């Protein structure tokens, strides 16, 4: 990551505090499309896998108040423009978690005439959570790994053209190529 003023020198504690507060108050815009949305719902609303204890709040009133979008489910060509429009409505810094194999790469419908082969064809993705559907624990792992990245990142890098490798949940270090 590029290092801006908030990541070094006397302002570094400010940067750490800013990142700390950002990572524990992620407002998640839930784009629940298909089966993965049920697992995401179990992670959010279920008392067993409660993700609110990590600070991820799942009910923003509109995309303009959201930091995080989770694409869970199959992306079809008919739905793709709506996803793109809603992604563009979110203010920066924003993060995208692609949940499930349909959102990662088209999944079981890789040969369908109406399915977009992966949401990363439309919007940039920060975390890939593989699975069909991924267990709520896997989804929470993705959120936690994203939070770790937020803690150590420079917020200005998103405007300064910084480049970051997407996280793949379940992959050992060094195995991932973007």
């Amino acid at each position, binding site marked *: 990551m590029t290092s801006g003023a908030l990541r070094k020198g006397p302002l570094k504690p400010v940067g750490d505090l800013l990142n700390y507060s950002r990572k524990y108050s992620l407002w998640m815009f839930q784009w629940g499309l298909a089966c993965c949305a049920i697992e995401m719902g179990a992670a959010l609303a279920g008392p067993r896998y409660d993700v609110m204890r990590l600070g991820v709040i799942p009910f923003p009133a509109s995309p303009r108040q959201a930091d995080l979008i989770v694409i869970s489910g199959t992306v079809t060509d008919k739905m793709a423009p709506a996803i793109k429009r809603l992604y563009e409505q979110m203010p920066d810094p924003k993060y995208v978690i692609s949940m499930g194999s349909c959102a990662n790469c088209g999944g079981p419908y*890789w*040969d*369908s*005439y*109406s399915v977009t*082969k992966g949401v990363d064809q439309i919007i940039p993705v920060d975390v890939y959570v593989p699975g069909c559907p991924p267990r709520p624990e896997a989804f929470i792992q993705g959120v936690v790994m994203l939070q770790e990245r937020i803690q150590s990142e420079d917020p200005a890098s998103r405007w300064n053209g910084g480049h970051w490798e997407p996280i793949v949940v379940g992959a050992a270090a060094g195995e991932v190529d973007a």
Partner: protein
Amino acid sequence: MSDDGAPDAAEGATSMSDSNVALLERISTALGSDAIVESVESLGDLVVRVRADRWRDAAQACRTELGFDYLSFVGGIDWQPAPSADEGSGDTSAPVQPKEQTYGVAGSAGRFQVFARVASTHVPRVGLTLKVDLDEESPAVASWTSVYPGADWHERETWEMYGFDFHGHPSLRHLYLPSGFEGHPLRKDFPLLAREVKPWPGLVDVEGMPGDASDETEAPDSAGGGDA
């Protein structure tokens, strides 16, 4: 109603169960026996192929005279065999279908058919499958929406998937596909391009496929397993 154990397609009316024979009688009386081109019992279900110009009359007879108040679905079939890999379509991983054009249990005059299923919510275990042949050049048939309002969406789906025209339908427009979609996906000559560009990933597995055409059994015979 006894199940017809023989799955062979071309059985005639002689092997039908009694209830299906009675049902066929009632349909013939309601529509006139010249409206029925062929009828057969397939695995316990009565399948009746009607003449194309009597399609809506058949629906009306089903709803009013035969008491079939429930519409299950209306769909289409394209009997043309899909182009196979050795004809150069490039997809080597799909199951290989026979190359001759055959027509299923109630036969067909050509490539396209519309079929529908109706049932009764008052009489248990009775239902009827109806089929009708469509012209290959300009496939069209009467719409059922004036008889069964639920046929509206089924016919829209059949239109967008096959290109069949339904006369009398209030508005034949896309149901599932985006409005700019070109082509009719369920026709056999509509290729799935993703499969032609790249073969089924499972083909690159390390393990070879088990021996073909062998009748060895695969039953893990766990007698009395579990604790129920």
